[in-house]
């Protein structure tokens, strides 16, 4: 994941890519998002979960009707959310540590297809440029 100053641009690009693919009809009706993000630094703040949830809201076209949070809210946090049409998401944040690059992994399941985003795992240097251009 790029540094904080480029984070919002990065998330905008990511959000647009996901929503764009959904709107293209490539995966049918979006039904489930698995968002697993590794975070650099000490604390997993609520704003990170909110950012991810905002993107899910764009994907599903509304806000969730049911939410359940777990984790200590500092080192790790998980949110389960359900939307009115039964679509759902699991959003989790955890420390990246020294062994893995920071960034999200996303699995978006649609009624007739799926999208997989491996974030920085596929090549950090390239991903870090997103948001700078």
């Amino acid at each position, binding site marked *: 994941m790029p540094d904080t100053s480029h984070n919002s641009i990065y998330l905008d690009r990511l959000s647009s890519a996901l929503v764009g693919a959904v709107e293209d009809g490539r995966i049918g009706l979006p039904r489930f998002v698995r968002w697993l993000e590794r975070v650099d630094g000490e604390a997993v703040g609520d704003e990170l979960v909110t950012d991810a949830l905002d993107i899910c809201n764009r994907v599903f076209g509304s806000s969730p009707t049911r939410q*359940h949070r777990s984790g200590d809210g500092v080192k*790790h946090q998980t949110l389960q959310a359900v939307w009115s049409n039964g679509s759902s998401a699991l959003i989790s944040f*955890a420390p990246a540590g020294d062994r893995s690059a920071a960034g999200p992994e996303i699995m978006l399941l649609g009624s007739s297809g799926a999208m997989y985003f491996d974030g920085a795992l596929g090549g950090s240097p390239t991903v870090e440029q997103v948001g700078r251009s």
Partner: protein
Amino acid sequence: MKSLGVLCIGGLQTHQENHAAGFNADSRSHIVAVADVAEIDDRRRDLNVRLAAQYDVPYIEGIEEALALPEVDIVSMCADVEFRHNVAIACARAGKILFLDKPLASKAVLAESMVEAVAESGVVSQMYSFVNTPWAKAAKECVDSGRLGRLLSVHADILFAKGPGGTAGNNGPRIETDEPEQFTFVESKREFFDLGVYPIGLCLWLADDVPVEVSAVTGNYFFEQHERNDTEDFGAVSMSFNNGVVATAVGGRIGWNSHPAGGPHRITLVGEQGTERFDAWEPRIEIYSTAEPPKLPEPHPQDPMGMWRSTQQAAGIPKKTTYAPLADETRWYPDDIEAFLDCLEQGREPVMSAARALGPSKVISAAYRSAASGKPEFV
């Protein structure tokens, strides 16, 4: 070790296809008969008789008669979910070693009575699971090594990319029942029950505990067949443990075209020192070319979801070609049977004994209650 005689309960178009093949391939065991309860229908009887013919052994209807055969040491138990607990209890009381299909029973309370019977009889037992796959063992090694520090969370996804997706017609929420009663259908099954048991079992094994509270959702996201039978094709559960650990498990069936291999099979471990993931399809080669990609053929009328090996072969379902993982997926079933026979040979308790397999059954029952109520529920 002498070769142990295996009684197979249940036949073709159950997991017995794979279990029987595993026992038959290992020199420490051999198939002696196929049996089932007397209450089965003609279709199930025919499928059982065909498995017996495949191994050239007798087919016996009636569990007591089959258990009376002196050459039976092990029972490989794949009775329909609705009969499963009673059959397992009878086998345990007869003193037979048990290799059990998953999950243990249709609901936690029945699984509990089964586990009590197994404990009283003192027989060795194992439920089929993914704990003996190489990627799950690598995750366990990571936890045991302590290299991530104190475990904070475990996330596991097991989704099978089989069946013609994109046919679900109802785009609304699924209305779940808090205590499902019927599980066995030809065209579909309860996928959170049947496949969710894998990631839930992995989470509980890796966390080495049973959660106290769960929040779950089930869905009819992909398949018309599941909608028609009121069986969910998808489920996700968030689990909270007493020691602060959180686990999430996603289980279900997605369309054949929704994944370049058999479906997402992944464990992510989170500790205070960082995060590691273990993926069944990594490491792998990815192949893209001008060669015609494989296509899902017309579904087999008796198995449109591509659940069973025999019907997959009969329908001509091709192997997908984009991912070429270095690990051998076809070893997962035989590896689990081999690990079971290793335990018997070496006098060790199997990792996924009936006692340990009770945890996933408790979670699944609580998860159905949560999906029905829309609120977290205690396990």
